[in-house]
């Protein structure tokens, strides 16, 4: 019988992630303040100034440099961390692609937030999903516990020799960053065992290499092909690390997707991020009314778990995806990808666009949409504007 090695506390999301980062013992961090990530930066600065975390915190002049600085440190062998949000993530985008292309282990926590113009400090997923083609592994947390657990797993996944890719952990701005929740944290020794120190550096004076030089077309495409293989191959590693984490915590860690009452479901919500909790509550209420509904949470956005989605949704009549972001001129990103995953399966995919710019979404919203569907009001795309 395994003992659960955690103790119970309460923290807001930003502090939970900062605490996980402290336990992961990175040697270099570079962070620039941006709402709603800022209180995480403050916490990290506090840990370092108090000597609780022995690391260099580079207080850069902007997010482009934040990503550049952790890239440099990661190239030199450091375990690194940075965090950002919204405009900050856009501002660092060039470097986000740069580190993805070079396949350097980096963990970036993104407190998701709407993108200007117009200005909005509130939550949605437009920032996070805009990085979906940057050769990163991308995961979305559901709650504060998940954000903590995911941060620790992100370091391990990123540095795994079979993966070697940067990992972006998304967690909803304010909804998770600023909400205090019950949190079970691991003992430091347990984290040390789960996450041994980072091993390799790209800077070796005895055997120097040229990092990030020009590649002619044949080489460039070959490198992209290798990246594709590494990202697809990471699915198995993410699931393996999830299981490993499950063992030491006793908490279920779900891997790529998580199913709630999917088994005999006729209609299923698909969600990603914090509102999964609201969707779960809606499913619970609908089940109480005897409606056969379920929920599929997509935990990993990149690589997109196509095979798992197809497997889990086999036999359902329809899917209602909730997107907190939108690809203008196309549709909800998650909806599009779920559709692609279910291609030729005959399963109907309906797309709901909601919560853009922080617009409130509650269990009752999920419930109402599903009731409409069950009453035969099908749709291709529906914006919850009312």
């Amino acid at each position, binding site marked *: 019988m395994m003992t659960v090695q955690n103790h119970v506390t309460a923290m807001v999301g930003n502090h939970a992630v900062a605490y996980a980062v402290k336990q992961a013992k990175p040697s270099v961090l570079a962070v620039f303040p941006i709402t709603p990530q800022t209180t995480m930066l403050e916490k990290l600065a506090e840990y370092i100034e108090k000597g609780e975390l022995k690391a260099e915190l580079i207080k850069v002049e902007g997010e482009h440099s934040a990503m550049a600085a952790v890239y440099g440190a990661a190239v030199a062998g450091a375990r690194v961390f940075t965090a950002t949000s919204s405009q900050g993530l856009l501002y660092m985008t060039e470097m986000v692609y740069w580190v993805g292309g070079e*396949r350097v282990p980096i963990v970036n926590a993104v407190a998701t937030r709407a993108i200007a113009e117009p200005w909005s400090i509130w939550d949605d997923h437009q920032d996070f999903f805009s990085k979906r083609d940057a050769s990163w592994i991308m995961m979305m947390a559901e709650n504060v516990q998940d954000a903590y657990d995911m941060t620790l797993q992100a370091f391990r996944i990123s540095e795994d020799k079979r993966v070697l890719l940067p990992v972006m952990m998304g967690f909803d701005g304010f909804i998770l960053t600023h909400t205090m929740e019950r949190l079970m944290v691991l003992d430091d020794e347990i984290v040390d065992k789960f996450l041994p120190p980072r091993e390799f550096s790209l*800077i070796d004076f005895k055997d120097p290499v040229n990092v990030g030089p020009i590649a002619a077309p044949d080489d460039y495409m070959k490198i992209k092909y290798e990246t594709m293989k590494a990202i697809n191959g990471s699915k198995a590693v993410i699931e393996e690390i999830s299981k490993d984490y499950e063992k030491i915590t006793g908490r279920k860690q779900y891997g790529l997707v998580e199913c709630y009452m999917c088994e005999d479901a006729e209609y299923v919500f698909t969600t990603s991020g914090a509102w999964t909790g609201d969707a779960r509550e809606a499913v619970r209420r609908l089940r109480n009314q005897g409606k056969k509904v379920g929920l599929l949470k997509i935990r990993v956005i990149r690589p997109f778990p196509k095979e798992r989605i197809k497997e889990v949704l086999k036999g359902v009549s329809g899917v209602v995806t909730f997107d907190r972001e939108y690809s203008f001129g196309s549709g909800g990103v998650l909806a599009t990808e779920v559709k692609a995953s279910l291609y030729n399966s005959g399963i109907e995919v309906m797309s709901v666009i909601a919560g853009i710019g922080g617009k409130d979404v509650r269990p009752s919203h999920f419930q109402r949409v599903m009731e409409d569907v069950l009453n035969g009001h099908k749709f291709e795309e529906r914006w919850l504007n009312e």
Partner: protein
Amino acid sequence: MSELVPEYIRRKKVISQQHFFRGNAACPGCPIPKELELLLEVMGKKTVLVVPASCSTVIMGDIHGSPSQVPVIHSAFAASAAIASGISRQLRMRGDDAKVVVWAGDGATGDIGFATVSGAAERNEDIIYVCYDNEAFMNTGIQRSSLTPFGAWTTTTPTGKREFKKPVPFIMIEHKIPYVATASIAYPFDYQAKLRKAKDIQGFRYIHLLSPCPPGWRFDSSLTIEVAKVAVETGVWPLFEVVNGEFSLTGLSKTLLDKSKRKPVEEYLKLQGRFDKMTKDDVRAFQEAVDSMWEYIKQLVKK
């Protein structure tokens, strides 16, 4: 190949046994390979070069090999001083005394990367930043930068630039960093002496190196050193260093505070096709700007 480097990057081998391999991809008459060779001779093998988008990106070879004997980290255009900051902090964390050198052009330094350079200088990061200034965006084919001089033809200033050169070395002095210097490839001993001094100082060291570009400046590729030399003799390019706030002129420039010792700027301008379209008034304005810079230098020397 070392265990330290993962498989996916192993193809990017550094092949040179020399400081800097001859037969690299530089244009004929380009001073960059020589400038790098002189730099690496001083800095030694325990040096990391960080190179933003520039002519040197091409000179540094492709994924099949690099002409440098030391690790080269290529950087996005605006990112080099920040990447170098990260490398330097991690080297400090692992107790490694290797040197981190940014090798950047004028565009990466004075334009797109200016905030990054200024940020790293303000934080006094332990890096040596060398700007090799060829006074335009040369790698993309001679477009004006903020460091292109007044009157110069470029493809984006076809009738000659109307603004004066951004005085980056002087701006760097105002950052109160431990070391700032200018240098010229025509005076290699002066350049290397400055590198040697910079090597032994901790904190942000800035060296601004005038690096004439034969195709961009429109002169014959045999004249590179001559052009770099006349730039100093006319006072257009003063050689100085600032150690912990102490300003001093070096080499020939020590003698040039007296205006009569400086050759007229025409001698510099006439060597280069890029100044062909300048009018007499333009030349006068250029001369006045040089003279006024020397008045400013006079104040710095007195301090």
